[in-house]
């Protein structure tokens, strides 16, 4: 799995509570991404990072924030979880020299009740 670990793998949380998902990589890739996957919508980009402390918004960033204090870790935070944020979240990395492809983690299934 290209040295990507997501935690937790499954989480159930209540509406209004904060939630943080973690992505850890051992590949030293520069770029890291958070996607969500929902039936009928496919994979959609939430936020991405192009270096330590350098992040930017994707197409569905409302209600989410990210942080990257180290090359290997990229955190996704839901400040106040809502039922619409029930989804499967995937972290991805890219930046291997001469290659544009991204590699994905195993995903985190988040349920907001």
């Amino acid at each position, binding site marked *: 799995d290209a040295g990507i670990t997501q935690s937790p793998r499954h989480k159930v949380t209540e509406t209004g509570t904060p939630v943080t998902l973690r992505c850890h990589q051992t590949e030293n890739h520069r*770029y890291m991404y958070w996607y969500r996957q929902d039936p009928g*919508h*496919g*994979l959609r*980009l939430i936020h991405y990072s192009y270096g330590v402390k350098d992040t930017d918004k994707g197409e569905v960033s409302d209600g989410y924030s990210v942080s990257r204090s180290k090359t290997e870790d990229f955190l996704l935070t839901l400040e106040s979880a809502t039922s619409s944020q029930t989804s499967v979240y995937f972290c991805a990395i890219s930046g291997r020299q001469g290659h*544009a*492809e*991204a590699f*994905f983690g195993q995903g985190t299934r988040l349920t907001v009740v």
Partner: protein
Amino acid sequence: EDQVTQSPEALRLQEGESSSLNCSYTVSGLRGLFWYRQDPGKGPEFLFTLYSAGEEKEKERLKATLTKKESFLHITAPKPEDSATYLCAVQEGWTTDSWGKLQFGAGTQVVVTP
């Protein structure tokens, strides 16, 4: 708005029955087109990258091709283990705002029966 459209949404094949999946895109300045395989409950698994029209890549029973507006994933003599959802993604030309970001299609779910 840039779009990536995959067809068909679902495909049911008999073992050995070859077929093709389509991915059409409207992004300007394509940097790369990617194919992934996704099994239930798992993350997408990288298959191929195509960079320019006319390029082809092969891996076992899979062959990906690229034209200026679409890509095809050909599955030759499929086996039940080829059952999965196949995702297509495109990456726009290099700019500060778009480097590395992938725009995905909704996928084609392939089921191969013995």
